[in-house]
């Protein structure tokens, strides 16, 4: 075992490592060997590095949003604003079409998520009842849709023939119920002891009343998690709007952002080909400001919600 240690340990513990461990106490935190200390520092450094790399682009964008174009173009902006200005941010926030897109998205997220949750709950609850005949058939009916789909064009034609194009319903209805989330919700409902229901029914509580009065109050964490998934989906998805919405008054924030950035990206790639930009480049800090506006609302709710999702999303790893 001991000799095998160096074989399994790979590269990092080249420094002298005592063959036999002295402290084989069962208690936690055995004395660390020098090799382990090197290993531990390496892990810490790497992890901090990864985290920083992951965060850096956001910080840089945030800094750019508040820096002067001159500072960006001369490459002075790294992590904090240089030649601080709030002009680009003000310009974005004064643009009524951006504000309008923001409001559309807030509306879509709130209404969409509420409907998602409502329909996910009323679908998951009957399916969680082991005494319900035919639930296996319904499950199969649902799982098939996870495995096979008609694809973009047929769905587009259905949405079109229902006259949903250019309405916000086109962004809500096609994704109203996610079979995957129903399964997660269903497994959660099933984790609540059946005796509770039997006792309630004994007391004269009906199926619906049991759901509303007893099951839902117990399901806070998983409702929050699934609600979060739906809400983030509504907030972030842009392809639905690109596909179904032409009306500029109904553009979502992400779609609006895409229109703004796309212009400048085309521009960047042209600039990269010809080395000189003939087009008016959207000011870099303006671009950054739009990105910040689209991101900040998520950052605000993120700390409140994140304690739920670790706990809740583990439900997904338990088979339904």
């Amino acid at each position, binding site marked *: 075992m001991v000799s095998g240690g160096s074989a399994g340990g790979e590269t990092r513990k080249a420094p002298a490592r005592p063959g036999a461990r002295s402290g084989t106490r069962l208690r936690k935190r055995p004395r660390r060997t020098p090799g382990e200390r090197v290993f531990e520092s390496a892990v810490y450094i790497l992890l901090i590095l990864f*985290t920083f790399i992951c965060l850096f*682009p956001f910080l840089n964008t945030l800094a750019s949003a508040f820096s002067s174009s001159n500072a960006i173009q001369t490459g002075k902006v790294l992590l904090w604003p240089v030649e601080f200005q709030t002009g680009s941010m003000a310009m974005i926030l004064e643009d009524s079409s951006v504000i309008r897109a923001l409001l559309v998205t807030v509306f879509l997220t709130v209404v969409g998520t509420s409907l998602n949750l409502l329909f996910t709950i009323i679908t998951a609850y009957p399916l969680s009842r082991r*005494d319900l005949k035919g639930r296996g058939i319904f499950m199969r009916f649902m799982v098939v849709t996870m495995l096979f789909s008609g694809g973009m064009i047929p769905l587009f034609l259905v949405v079109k023939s229902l006259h949903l194009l250019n309405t916000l319903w086109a962004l809500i209805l096609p994704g109203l119920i996610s079979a995957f989330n129903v399964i997660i919700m269903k497994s959660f409902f099933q984790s609540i002891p059946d005796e509770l229901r039997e006792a309630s029914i004994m007391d004269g509580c009906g199926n619906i009343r049991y759901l509303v009065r007893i099951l839902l109050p117990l399901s806070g964490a998983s409702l929050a998690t699934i609600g979060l998934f739906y809400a983030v989906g509504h907030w972030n998805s842009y392809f639905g709007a690109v596909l179904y919405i032409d009306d500029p008054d109904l553009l979502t924030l*992400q779609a609006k952002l895409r229109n703004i950035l796309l212009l400048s*990206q085309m521009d960047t790639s042209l600039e990269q080909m010809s080395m000189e930009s003939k087009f008016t480049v959207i000011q870099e800090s303006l671009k950054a400001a739009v990105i910040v506006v689209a991101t900040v609302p998520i950052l605000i709710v993120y700390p409140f919600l994140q304690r739920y999702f670790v706990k809740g999303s583990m439900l997904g790893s338990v088979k339904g």
Partner: protein
Amino acid sequence: MKEWKRNYDLYLLLVPAAVFFIVFAYIPMGGLVIAFKDYNIFQGVWDSGWAGLDNFREMLSIPEFFRITRNTLMLNLLGLLVCFPAPIVLALMLNEVRARSLKRISQSLLYLPHFMSWIVLGGIVYAVLSPKYGVVNQLLRWAGVEEIYFMADQTWWVIVYTLSAVWQSAGWGTIIYLAAITAIDPALYEAASIDGAGRIRKIFSVTLPSIMPTIVILFILAVGQMVSIGIEQPLALANPVVGDVSEVISTYIYQVGIKQGEFGLTTAVGMVQSVINLCLVVTANHFARKAGGEGLW
């Protein structure tokens, strides 16, 4: 009969979902007949004439078909090689961190990109990598290296695509592995300690083997997704200059189908993709069951 009476309200609750799945999942599946038709917008799905396998023949004859298939497979394969192991490595590292605050902070920050839209991420990628103003090229210039046209160079674009996928998903992906790690019996670590195993040894002899079933299942399922590709990432990162590598099946269906109205042809392309995907997922699930005892269903 009695059962139906007692639980009629439960069945009623299922009605909206039944309608939903029929309208937005099963009817579009039926809509796949367009692939066999000479679809005409004015005549609608049913009245358009039959085209037999013409759409499929055309699909095989157009040069783009080879290109989009190759690109989809290439980007997915790179994803499998790079994006798949990333969360495993991260989870193992997070698991080794004893300082709880560091662990929590870096977890929160690593999850963050998962909550951003691809438009935001794409916008950031373009801004950071921009040859003139981007911070990465600034750093390269400081280091005396010539600037790199990341988004206009095909090889670099593919690399950026893959790494941005890692950026977006690696942190979030650790959750499932961390959950699997918490389920490991602590007695195994104690036994390993008694046998003289150090921390590194324990990672390779206890942690990794214990989460292997999870890894295997996720890997097999990832293989099952080889031919399908979402549209939001490729669409957000693509630009005309690198079209040769950035055009994938989903973006092609959008560009040619929705924008140019070639409904029959692109439905055929989508159908081939869906069918291959279904076969792969079913096969993958079969192997996942064999390997870990638990598949998707």
